[in-house]
């Protein structure tokens, strides 16, 4: 590939920090990937000059120029489709959709094109496309800006869907997603970007789709991802005070699902609870519960339950908004109910 801007031979910033923020880790992964492979380019609204709504692409426009960090018009379906077209002929595009709420406009490009082209072409084409997008309930952004898209994307053969929540995972999983020859959806969470966490650039990465046990326990398995991992860990602390040891699993990937890790945990704890920020009815938690029942029915002393968002559009009012998504108290309450032997 011939580069059109002057400063060739970039070296990514060398980072040996012990702590990074999530957005910084994502930024580093992008920077390294762009330095390593000139086929990698970024496009999206305000990813360039502005540096990204959540700073994730900060500094890259100055470093790699407008052709590799492209500010787009508000045309989600077409610029995502642009990514698909470029991926067909050798590009490795990274599309940023400013938030998942706007991805509803780009689903034709994601579902009807990106996910199906390899199969429909009899395996002739690969679609090494990454679509990054943040979602979730943030701070009073109201119904049109507080959504999650897991349920829609999980059912689509051809896609991979990952949900990194820590700086380390964000770095690892975005790097792996860019290297992967399949279309990968990287779901980020708006409230996690400024979270700091330990970071080691040299550490051996976990596989892209592996789940991680964040806390060991013997009585109950709490299954979560993104911001709900923190909620689950908080609940686990409280439960520990009651003598209950909860195991907390961070899924990290939703398609595929690391079921073996869940089954192993449930064989020990005999109880499981999915903690999901999205609305309960037909959310990702439904698949997690259904498949866990199928795989570990004999080990379960009680049904896998779900503590999840209410089945309402997200309200603007702050109190109502908080009431619409799970908190540690709700997790603790449900956990105690599950673990209380029924008479």
């Amino acid at each position, binding site marked *: 590939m011939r580069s059109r801007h002057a400063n060739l031979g970039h070296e990514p910033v060398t980072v040996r920090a012990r702590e990074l923020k999530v957005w910084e880790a994502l930024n580093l992964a992008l920077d390294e990937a762009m330095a390593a492979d000139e086929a990698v380019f970024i496009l999206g609204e305000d990813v360039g000059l502005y540096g990204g709504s959540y700073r994730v692409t900060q500094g890259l426009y100055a470093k790699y120029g407008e052709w590799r960090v492209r500010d787009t018009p508000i045309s989600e379906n077409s610029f995502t489709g642009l990514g698909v077209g470029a991926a067909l002929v050798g590009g490795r595009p990274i599309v940023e959709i400013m938030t998942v709420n706007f991805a509803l406009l780009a689903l034709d490009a994601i579902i009807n094109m990106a996910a199906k082209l390899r199969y429909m072409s009899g395996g002739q084409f690969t679609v090494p496309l990454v679509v990054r997008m943040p979602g979730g309930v943030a701070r009073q952004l109201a119904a049109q800006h507080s959504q999650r898209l897991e349920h829609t994307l999980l059912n689509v053969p051809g896609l991979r869907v990952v949900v990194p929540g820590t700086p380390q995972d964000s770095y690892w999983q975005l790097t792996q997603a860019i290297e992967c020859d399949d279309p990968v959806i990287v779901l980020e969470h708006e409230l996690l970007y400024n979270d700091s966490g330990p970071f080691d650039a040299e550490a051996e990465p976990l596989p892209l789709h592996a789940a991680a046990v964040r806390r060991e326990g013997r009585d109950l398995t709490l299954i979560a991802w993104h911001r709900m991992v923190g909620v689950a860990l908080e609940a686990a602390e409280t439960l520990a005070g009651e003598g209950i040891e909860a195991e907390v699993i961070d899924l990290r990937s939703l398609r595929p699902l690391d079921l073996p890790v869940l089954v192993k945990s449930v064989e020990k704890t005999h109880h499981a609870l999915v903690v999901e920020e999205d609305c309960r009815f037909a959310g990702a938690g439904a698949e997690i519960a259904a498949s866990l029942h199928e795989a570990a029915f004999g080990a379960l002393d009680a049904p896998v339950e779900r503590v999840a968002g*209410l089945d309402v559009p997200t309200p603007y009012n702050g109190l109502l908004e908080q009431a619409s998504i799970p908190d540690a108290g709700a997790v603790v309450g449900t956990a105690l109910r599950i673990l209380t032997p029924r008479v």
Partner: protein
Amino acid sequence: MQRELARQFLYDMMLARQFEQAAADQYQQGNIAGFLHLYPGEEAVAVGSLRAADAGDYVVSTYREHVHAMVKGITPRAVMAELFGKATGCSGGYGGSMHLFDREKRFLGGYAIVGETFPVAIGVGYWLRMTGQNDVVYCFFGDGAANQGTFHESLNMAALWKLPVLFICENNHYQIGTEIHRHTAVPEIWRHTTPYGIPGKRVDGMDVAAVYDATRDALAFVRAGNGPMLLECDTYRYRGHSMADSGAYRSALEVQELMARDPVRTFRERALAEGWIRETEIADIEKQVQETVADAVQFAEQSPDPDDVRKDVYAEPFRLYGGSR
């Protein structure tokens, strides 16, 4: 110009400026959350265009719609209370800044996904035409929104079926941090109507009287059954895109140049010069505006929060795992 109208323009624009300043303050104090998109610099557009409307006309607007809402008749109290998320807000506290609604005033929202105002507006226009009503629907949109596919799709249908829609582009030259020359190949939005045969016109969006006159003409055209029209108002926002944005992508020179064309100040000076208004009257307005805004803030502060998170998801509620009707 009638003195009464000039006074109205000035009142509206001064109220708008003050109201948005108060909203910014309240945001800083933590009483307002979420995304807050303010209007300073663009007052002449909402005021000039909507003062030409009849009470029966409908409005479909964006997330930057506080001023549209107030000029269309929603009280500053109801708007401010909505920004506070209170039960007394015009959307009961469920919508917030980006989703103002008022059924009575025919204010149909408040859409936060860029480009949604087009289909909603042609839907209203379709109904008006199908049922032979004489009202017009206003469709506001930004320069960035003109790149969304719905612009093209909806203008085509509006033209095909001669729907009574007045499309008003608030061209403030920016799509957040991306300047119009970097997001639109032909940065004159009024020229984008050629594929539909819709008349397009550009007007100085910093001049309230010009916007008013252009809107009156456009409304007459649309109301006469000639189908839709598009008005591009050339304007500028003085603040960042939202409270989260400093606007650092714009040069100081540019901002300075546009500040010199401040629609509120320039109209005030002109109204004085033309003798449409006197200094004392302006002082009265100033006072009235300050009181109104202070009252709106106080009202919002003292209003209760809504208390039922499950209300109004459905017109006919049911249990999700329930069976029934």
